[in-house]
């Protein structure tokens, strides 16, 4: 049964990712991307990596994707974009993501109901992740922090205003 759950959520992840790629509209694509991230979070959950699953939902599907949606919707302001946004959110577009995520919800409900008997692999909780990160993988954490530094400085450099194009 766990295998069937895994295949179903993997299928949802694949279908929603393909739908991300074929959308004409950025906001619709992002809706499917959120479903895709939720599905991969659910796969983590099935493997017993609860902590990774929660992080996937909170950080990717929650924070980063919501930010994406807002940035894309707010990029160009004005009367024209309000009409544009209305056309983005025409009723009916919610059906696809809703269908896929309700399938995921059903799976989640089923697993929680079965939790006592289900064999969900080796459970990796937050404590073990923390011990691994600050024990053997300490250098990797440091390297990741430097990667973030490089990304930060790089995005500042790309985003800075050019002095000769800005009035003093």
């Amino acid at each position, binding site marked *: 049964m766990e295998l069937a759950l895994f295949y179903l959520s993997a299928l949802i992840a694949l279908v929603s990712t393909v739908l991300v790629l074929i959308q004409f509209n950025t906001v619709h694509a992002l809706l499917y991307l959120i479903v895709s991230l939720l599905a991969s979070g659910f796969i983590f959950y099935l493997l017993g990596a609860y902590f990774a699953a929660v992080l996937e939902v909170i950080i990717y599907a929650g924070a980063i994707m919501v930010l994406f949606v807002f940035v894309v919707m707010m990029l160009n302001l004005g009367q024209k974009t309000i009409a544009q946004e209305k056309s983005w959110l025409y009723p009916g577009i919610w059906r696809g993501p809703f269908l896929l995520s309700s399938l995921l919800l059903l799976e989640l409900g089923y697993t929680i109901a079965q939790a006592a008997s289900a064999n969900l692999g080796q459970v990796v909780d937050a404590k073990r992740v923390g011990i691994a990160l600050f024990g053997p*993988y300490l250098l990797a954490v440091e*390297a990741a922090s430097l990667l973030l530094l490089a990304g930060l400085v*790089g995005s500042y450099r790309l985003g800075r205003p050019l002095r*000769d194009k800005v009035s003093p």
Partner: protein
Amino acid sequence: MSTDALLALMPLIIMAASAIVVMLAIAIRRDFKIAFHLTLAGLLLTLATLSLAFRHGAMPVTDLLLIDTYSILACALIVASASVVALLCRDYFQRVEHQNEEIFVLLLTAVLGGMILVSSSHFALLFLGLEILSVSLFPMMAHRTSTSLEAGIKYLMLSGVSSAFLLFGMALIYGEFGVLSFRLLAPWAVSHNLFALTGFILILAALSFKLSLTPFHLWTADVYQGAPAPISTLVATVSKAAVFAFLLRFWVFTQAYRSEILVEILALIGAASVLVGNLLALRQTRLKRILAYSSIAHMGYLIIGFVAGSILQTGFLLETTWIYLAAYVLTNLGAFAVVSALSSDERECDDPQTYSALFRNHPWLAGIFMIHLFSLAGIPLTIGFIGKFYVFAASIDAGLWWLAGILVISSGMGIYYYLRVLRLMLLPGVAVTGTATPAMRWILSSLALLILGFGLFPQPLIQVIQSLPKP
């Protein structure tokens, strides 16, 4: 972590610290000169600590890093070429006030990424090192003009794709064996496991992207042409040297050289890169595109030496590839440095019009550039010849006659287009305005002298490389 381990890590720590110091200095006061001097000081201090760590010998630092003489030598090569690139950046970016100080922070993080990459002995740090390197590179490429933005975006997209390949390969290998440490993968080479083989091929593909080997070379010319000249230098030397040094280390640690399939795939990739690089360079007239295609071909020669060394399975692998790598880095550093010295923030020295008549206007720069072109073509008395000689000797020793034949044909093609650049430099034409600063003149002359010196008397270089223990 013990004191010894911290001592072995010192070069990496100093490099990371200098990136942060330069960033803070920029935050306090935007001053191009201060940022440059701090960067150079950080790089030189790192070189000094590398020589200290060299005496220490091999030192595993946790499970993730292994600092040994091999990685220290590779780090020294990276840091030394980055110092030259820092100097190029100073001359290129300071001419106009456009707030370019962040270039130095990114330069330092790129070097740090390269150092982590060559010291890694674990997939986690391999990935992080490679990402730090490429995330630092693409904001440096995207610089004001639309062609350079295009270069930055192309590099970003393709390095994203190659990271995906890399992660998929790592996942397949981990799924099969449950280990992430390179040394523990060594028993794999004798088994014929399809998952692991696929994983290794995917990892090779990802590294080939970074080395611009043939099926994955499509980004090279556009990125080299679009990026500012010092950044092209950085990509051609530091990034490629780091990735190749890592590939060699990974290859030896995992004993992948015992796998016939992987060696055959690499032989095909090498032959294709040599042919494609040289053939595409034939019709080019833009200087940076010629250098880009020639760097594809040179990476192909390097891979051919690598394949021959793997078949021979002796210390020859290390000797051939390292001498070729040293020759490649020295020569390309010099050649790109001349281009960079003639270019500025506003105008790239790339068109035939800008570099024709170079011999009349800048006889000294033109002479230096001629030496580098000769070394790229592999003409005797230069280090390029020694490197090519090693590759020939290794491929004939290994009985790879078809590869040796391809080498002969493509070297002939190489001479044609390198000498055509020389002919254009002799034509009459308008004056180019770029000049080289005294520090630049000094660096360029010493690079040319090194190329000639090692070409005439390569023994010291060979001895250093022979003294390396197998990684």
